[in-house]
């Protein structure tokens, strides 16, 4: 592992409760969502992770207990170290703190996660839908939203599907 990454993680582990996971050359830190602002501020100011590469979410519908993970990807360009942060967010209270005040380019990424996953970011200056039109209902990237709305029609189920059609009124 990158030496700078190692010192960073050691310093953080002294202060916060973190869970480490390494796969290939990716180091991922998982921690409680309340800590995100503090850890991001420290990483930016003391350890040189000045770039937020991307921010996204993953939905573990039916697989893991806090349903969502918000994934932050930070990059220290001088040391060439990439760090991944994950904060679990439960389904019944999908709110986490915004990092726009720390990384200005988080603005659109957080709007995208709100739009497609329905996770709110407290303290975001302008949390509107970004991809979908204004009056859209639901958050389509969630796993319980089907990709295909309509079942493929075959001879054996042709009539059942046909009955659900709007043109079958009588």
């Amino acid at each position, binding site marked *: 592992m990158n030496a700078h990454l190692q010192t960073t993680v050691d310093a953080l582990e002294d202060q916060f409760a973190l869970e480490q996971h390494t796969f290939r050359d990716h180091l991922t830190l998982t921690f409680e969502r309340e800590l995100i602002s503090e850890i991001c501020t420290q990483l930016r100011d003391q350890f040189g992770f000045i770039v937020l*590469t*991307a921010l996204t979410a993953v939905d573990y519908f039916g697989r893991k207990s806090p349903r969502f993970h918000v994934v932050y990807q930070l990059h220290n360009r001088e040391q060439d170290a990439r760090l991944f942060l994950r904060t679990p967010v439960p389904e019944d209270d999908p709110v986490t703190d915004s990092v726009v005040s720390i990384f200005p*380019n988080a603005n659109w990424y957080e709007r995208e996660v709100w739009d497609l996953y329905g996770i709110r970011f407290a303290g975001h200056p302008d949390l509107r839908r970004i991809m979908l039109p204004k009056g859209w209902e639901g958050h389509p990237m969630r796993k319980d939203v089907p990709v295909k709305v309509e079942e493929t029609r075959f001879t054996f189920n042709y009539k059942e599907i046909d009955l659900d059609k709007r043109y079958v009124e009588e």
Partner: protein
Amino acid sequence: MTIHNEVTSVSLDEIKTLVSQKALDGETMLLNMGPQHPSTHGVLRLLLELDGETIVSCIPDIGYLHTGIEKTMEDKTYQKAEVVTDRLDYLNTVGNNLAYCLAVEKLVDLDVPIRAQVLRVILAELQRIASHLIWLATQALDLAAQSVFLYCFREREKILDILELVSGQRMMTTYIRPGGLWRDVPVEFESAVRTFLDEFPRRIDQYEDLLTKNPLFVDRTKGIAVISGEEAVRLGMTGPSLRGSGVDYDLRKLNPYSGYEQYEFEVPLGEHGDVFSRYIIRIQEMRESLKIIQQALDKLPYGPVRSNNRKYVPPPRSELGVSMEALIHHFKLWTEGFKAPDEAVYVPVSSPRGELGVFLEGDGGPKVYRAHWRTPSYANLQAIPKLAEGHLIADLVAIIGSLDIVLGDIDR
């Protein structure tokens, strides 16, 4: 009709934090630009707050081309999901395939033969030139230089001919596959690329003759939309738009992939961070790409173009008739697909527009569990409110062009 208006109209109340106090008092004007506007390069919509002709604030509105590509990928196996990656950034299709395949290869730990890696580099650099040609054509057209547009498209067609030669498709090639390439290049490939290499440097000189010292072009680009290096990094800009501000950040040098460390090339850097710097950077990048292609073509080794790992890569057609195992592998790969571990990887590559990153997560099954595309246009466009502030509407056209956005890349 009413539904349409409800969806697209923006009330002043919604955007009151994004405009100045003057707009709320009615002193400045709010003007809608796009989504159907020839110089917004697709379906970008901008809400402009204007004081006379000067832009006070600029509010981008995207999503008109959102097709749910990430959601579609979640429904497909790893091989099939690649087909939609071409449709993201439709000017950099080979680059998208490359980023996706590198991510899959990292996820399942798959090797790629050297010949395939060299061919990938050649095609990715050809695609970079093609993409920069479209950028140059449209940037010049936006600034009323119509002949450059025609010349650039003429040269781009030659690159598309090469892509058609290798893959049968001009644009949506899907030629790079996890573990290598779809098939080896035909024998005409080398001479076709060499012909292009011979004639293209002269063409770049011609474009420069038309633009670089042209006072009409220079007046409209120099000193427009200046952004400092630190500010650009803070806003998450990458690619030529960032290098125009003098920040040395190119993933081909920093984290070389596909053997980029073996080629000698420069990363051109700008000095002023204005529209003209970004123009000069891209012109020089085309020359550097030619150098890379030349070196790669000279050292192109013979050998296989697909990994021999039959659990992930289908066997050659010729084996199906004689080998039972090959038949089983072929059948399993095209019906079920291969399984990837329950882990996540992130692979960034250098696309013509900047850092193109694929975040790919598997769940132990044959389908993509989550694919997030960190697209460069999306990150670069976020800087436009900052870049456009204080400029005239006529300059905004040059600014949008200089960021080289592709809406398919932004809306996904």
